[in-house]
Structure formats: structure tokens, C-alpha cells
């Protein structure tokens, strides 16, 4: 097990997934703006996708399932970005700010 | 194009278009308050090359001021000189030989064609098309060569004199001018095919910056800006001067009021100028080019005189208040683009910046002429 053969090991990819997930969680907790949170959420999804792909490559009896799931996640992420950003723009029009704290009043 | 988005003042930012900007063709500055691509408010700032020609007129004698006029508008210089000499001749009662008047008219019209050609190229370049500028310059070069052979200079002519001309035209000039007319007509056809018919060009100008007749009147717009809005106004026809009543020509008027109409007016004016040149060459009488008796020192009697001429850029007015001295007591130069540019502030509100700059191009600005 060498550092140069890491790419042939399932654990490497699982750790990458976990790290991406952790970064995403950190971002979502600390970010103040909605856009920043959205970016962090994309990272969490990426972490999950890496896991799916890793299992697909190393352990799955069906070599497609993981890939299909990843594609599904991508579509969901794209949809999420679209919806999230239109909400952000609507919020910005309303409050003139995208700071999450400024937008606590959700009466509309 | 009115903005469908409600404009909120706190979302705007200031954009300084100029004094060094590719679209302003000189040192013109427009302070635009923008909301994204839309202009909320615009303030034109001029005067960067103000030279106080009016004061120069007060300290120089009448003949010494002759060459200043061509520095006002470097593209259509002869039209401005024409106004000046006509005014002084009227004020001091100098008779001008007929031949001189005809030659003046031919020269002014040639200069008008040259000026419109340059405007055409620069306008299309404002819209992003480069080649028409070069084609227009080729035709313009031909005119400049002819004018240079007669006047000695290519741009800032000092050719007209009180009572006549600096020197006479020769047969070379006449034959060159006769050759030029069919050549220019052919080029015009090419321009119409290449530019006027082009769908992109059409879409960019159609319906852009409509100017109502009322607005033109309130701002004193002239030239193609007024004629593109359906106003049948051309000083050459409305207030005939020089030998223009002898010529048969039309005033092109378009009623669409948009930038495309202004473009069409100028293109049609080239054609009309060609007609005038043609008739002028046909009717050109023989005779002297300077009057036989001309006062040595020009001293117009005291009084207040006004002369308007149609230059390439519109109605140029020159007012002389004389106290009978060697120098004018007061000389006022009314420049047409000053009024035309003034329209811009009000009418560009709510337009997108690219439309506004296309509109600015359609006004045919020469900045030294605004600033004087």
C-alpha cells in the first residue's frame, strides 16, 4: 500500500467523500449569505456522489447503479441551484440583502 | 425601448462614458446613471475642447477670423465658412460674382457629401461594422483630393473670401467632379446593399430613440434629427440663400422618428447633394471670382445681423453685432449639434446603453463644433 497506489483503494475515495462532506457542513454552518450556503450544499452533494461512485466502482454487483444515482444527484443539484437562486433573487428584491440574518422575517 | 423593469434608484451606479471612450468620437463625456444595462439618467458634460471662438472673433479683424470657422467643424468646414462670408457680405453690402457663388455651392455640397460619408462610416463603426468605414473613406478621399487641388488643404479649408473665393477652379476639377458623381452613386448602391438592407443593422436602429416633433422644436433640433422626425426643414429651402434657389433638389423627410430614419435622411441627402453638384457644374457661369470693387477694410455698419445656413450637421446660425469697428463687437456662433446633442440627455432615459450609443451616433456629433 503505497501513497502512489492510493487511487486503487476504496478507502481513499470514501475519505475524500467524507472530507468534502465535512467541508460542506462547515460552510453551511459558518456562511452568512444564502449564496454561500448554496455553494456549501453543493459540496455536500458532491461528497455523497463520490461515495456513490466509489462503491459503484469497487463493490457493486451492478456497475451502473452508482453512476445513475450520481447523475440523479447532479440533476437534483442543478434543479436546486435554479430554485435556490431564484429564491435568493426574490429575497434580494424584497430585502435588498442576501444575508440570512436580514431575512428572518418570512411574511413575504 | 422603455425598460420593463421598474427602476429603483438605490440599485443604480454611475458610468462615465467618456471623455475618452471609443463611441464619443472626441472628448465628450456622458455621465450615465445606470441600472444594469438601462440608463436611468444621463448628463452630458461638454467643453473639454472649448476654444472660445467667439472671443477670438471679437479680437481679430474680419479677414483674420476666416480660418477659425473651419476649425469649428473639421468635417464640414466649408459650410461654416459659407455662413460667415455670407453674413459679412450681407452686412457690409459686398456684391458677390455669380460664378463665385456657384463654385461655393458646389464646394459646400462636395464637403457635405464628404462629411456625410465620414459620418456613415463612423456610425456603422459605432454599431460594430468596420469595413463600411473604409469604403466610405475611399470615396471621401476622392472628394478630399478634388478639394485639395482647388483649396490647397484637405480638412480645414480657408477658401472663401469676403466677396468671392481664394482661387478659381479649373477644368481638371470639373472633369473630376463629373467623374465623381456616377462613382458615388454606384457606391451609394453598395452601401445600401451592404448596410441599409442588413437585418442586424435594421434591428439595431428600428424604433430606437424616437424623437417627437414637439421635442425637436423645444430643443431646436435641425438637420437629419428634425427631418427624421418628419419635419420638413432645411435652411437651403426654407430660407434660401446664395444660389440655392436656382437648384432643383428635394429635402428628404422620414416620419418614423427613429435612428433608422435619421440614417436614411443623411444617405438620401448625399444623393440630393450629388444632384446639386451636377446642376451646379452644368450651370456654372463664366466670370470673375472676386468682385471688382471691394472695400479694402471691411467695416460693417453698426447693427445686428443674422445669417443661417444649412451645414452638413444642420442649421448653423451666425450673429454679428457690429459697432462699425474693424473687429466685430460680438460674434455668436450657433452650432447645430449643440442643440442636437442637448436632446440626448432627455431622450436616452430608460434606453439600454448600446441603443443610447447608437442614438448618439445617429446625431452626427463633431465635438469641436459643440464646444466651439
Amino acid at each position: 500500500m503505497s501513497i502512489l497506489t492510493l487511487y486503487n483503494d476504496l478507502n481513499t475515495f470514501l475519505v475524500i467523500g467524507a472530507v468534502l462532506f465535512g467541508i460542506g457542513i462547515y460552510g453551511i454552518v459558518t456562511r452568512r449569505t444564502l449564496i454561500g450556503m448554496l455553494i456549501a450544499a453543493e459540496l455536500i452533494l458532491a461528497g455523497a456522489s463520490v461515495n456513490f461512485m466509489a462503491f459503484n466502482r469497487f463493490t457493486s454487483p451492478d456497475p451502473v447503479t452508482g453512476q445513475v444515482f450520481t447523475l440523479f444527484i447532479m440533476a437534483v443539484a442543478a434543479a436546486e441551484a435554479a430554485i435556490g437562486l431564484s429564491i435568493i433573487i426574490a429575497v434580494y428584491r424584497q430585502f435588498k440583502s442576501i444575508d440570512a440574518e436580514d431575512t428572518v422575517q418570512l411574511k413575504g | 425601448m422603455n425598460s420593463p423593469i421598474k427602476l429603483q434608484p438605490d440599485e443604480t451606479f454611475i458610468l462615465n462614458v467618456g471623455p475618452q471612450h471609443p463611441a464619443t468620437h472626441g472628448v465628450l463625456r456622458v455621465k450615465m446613471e445606470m441600472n444594469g444595462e438601462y440608463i436611468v439618467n444621463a448628463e452630458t458634460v461638454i467643453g473639454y475642447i472649448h476654444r472660445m471662438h467667439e472671443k477670438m472673433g471679437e479680437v481679430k479683424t474680419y479677414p483674420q477670423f476666416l480660418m477659425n470657422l473651419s476649425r469649428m467643424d473639421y468635417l464640414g468646414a466649408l459650410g461654416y465658412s459659407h455662413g460667415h462670408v455670407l453674413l459679412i457680405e450681407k452686412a457690409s453690402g459686398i456684391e458677390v460674382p455669380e460664378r463665385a457663388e456657384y463654385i461655393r455651392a458646389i464646394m459646400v455640397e462636395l464637403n457635405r457629401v464628404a462629411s456625410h460619408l465620414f459620418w456613415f462610416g463612423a456610425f456603422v463603426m459605432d454599431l460594430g461594422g468596420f469595413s463600411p468605414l473604409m469604403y466610405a473613406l475611399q470615396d471621401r478621399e476622392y472628394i478630399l483630393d478634388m478639394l485639395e487641388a482647388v483649396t490647397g488643404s484637405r480638412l480645414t479649408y480657408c477658401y472663401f473670401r469676403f466677396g468671392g473665393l481664394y482661387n478659381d477652379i479649373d477644368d481638371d476639377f470639373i472633369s473630376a467632379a463629373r467623374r465623381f458623381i456616377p462613382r458615388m452613386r454606384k457606391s451609394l448602391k453598395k452601401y445600401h446593399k451592404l448596410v441599409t438592407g442588413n437585418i442586424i443593422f435594421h434591428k439595431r436602429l428600428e424604433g430606437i430613440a424616437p424623437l417627437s416633433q414637439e421635442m425637436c422644436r423645444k430643443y431646436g433640433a435641425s438637420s437629419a434629427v428634425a427631418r427624421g422626425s418628419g419635419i420638413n426643414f432645411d435652411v437651403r429651402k426654407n430660407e434660401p440663400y446664395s444660389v440655392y434657389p436656382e437648384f432643383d433638389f428635394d429635402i428628404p423627410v422620414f416620419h418614423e422618428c427613429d435612428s433608422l430614419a435619421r440614417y436614411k435622411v443623411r444617405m438620401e441627402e448625399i444623393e440630393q447633394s450629388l444632384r446639386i453638384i451636377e446642376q451646379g457644374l452644368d450651370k456654372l457661369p463664366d466670370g470673375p471670382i472676386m468682385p471688382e470693387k471691394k472695400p479694402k477694410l471691411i467695416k460693417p455698419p453698426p447693427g445686428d445681423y443674422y445669417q443661417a445656413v444649412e451645414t452638413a450637421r444642420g442649421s448653423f446660425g451666425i450673429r454679428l453685432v457690429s459697432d462699425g469697428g474693424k473687429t466685430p463687437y460680438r460674434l455668436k456662433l450657433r452650432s447645430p449639434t449643440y442643440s442636437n446633442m442637448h436632446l440626448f440627455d432627455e431622450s436616452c432615459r430608460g434606453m439600454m446603453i448600446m441603443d443610447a450609443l447608437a442614438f448618439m451616433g445617429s446625431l452626427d456629433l463633431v465635438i469641436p463644433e459643440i464646444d466651439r
Partner: protein
Amino acid sequence: MNPSMVTSPSLFSVDGLVGVVFLINLVITIVGGFIACNSERLVRAVAGLIVCFIGVAGVYYFLNSPFVALMQVLIYVGAVSVTISFAIMLAAPEEKKRVGPAGPLVGPAGFATAALLAGGFSVLAVRTDWKVMAKINDGSIKTIGIELLTNYSMVFELISIVLLIAILGALVIARSGRDN
């Protein structure tokens, strides 16, 4: 430099180079992720996100799935990042607000949580004895296509519906905000 060099391929062999490229890829991914979550300016965060996603695409490539890797680039870099930067431009035109952590305690607390989660998952992943299969997918786009339209047609339909609803929803929300 590495004690286990004996069993590993030489650094200058082809396999070794691949390993180096993979390590670079890993670094790119993690650094991109950190930039995405830590930078003060949102545009830099988007830049970090793009770097991170290109890294993730590389990871997918190493997982023998070039199709998904390219889809990752196409969708995340070409679409999602562009949309996010669009929103940044619309919402914060003058960059008036610098974006940092909300409070003095949120940063460390968030970091602790995140580290705990990531560490826990990593430990869990490493400790578990996964049954690694020798069979490797061929990464062909054809297989994925066939599977998507047969076994996973439900997923396929779901994606379409989700995207359709997302487009409609985005339009409705963005439109209604405009009239205020």
C-alpha cells in the same frame, strides 16, 4: 521519501506518474473545497467551487467513469457555477457586503462539528471491511444509457419531472419578485 517505496511502483514509472497525478487531483479537490467555504468574496468561493468540481471530475475519471466525470464538468462548472455567479452579479452588484462567518464562535464550533463528522465518517469507512469486487465497469456510455431507459427508467422520469418543476418554479419565483 516513502518507507513503503519497495512495494510501490517507482515514481518515474508510468503507474507512479498516474499516482502523482491522482495526488495532485486530490489536493486540487480539497483546496478547492476549502476556498469555496472560506473565502470572503463570493466570486472567489465560486472559483473554489469550480476548482473543487474539476477535481471531483478527476476523481470520477479515476473511478473509471469518464462519462460521469464529463457530466460533472458540464453541469456543475458550465451550468451551476454560471448560475451562481449570475445570482451574485444580480444580488450584490457593488460587493458592498464582505461575507464572513456570522459570529466569533460560529467558526470554531462549525469547524469542530465538521471535523467530527468528516473524521467519524472516515474512520467508519476505513474500519469497515468492504467486499471489494474484482469486476470493473467499462465506463461505457451505452451501458448507462440502456440501464437508464430500462431498469432505471423511473429515475430518468423523475429527473425530468424534477427539472421541469424546477424550471417552472424558478420562473414563477423570479417573475413574482419582479413586480414588487
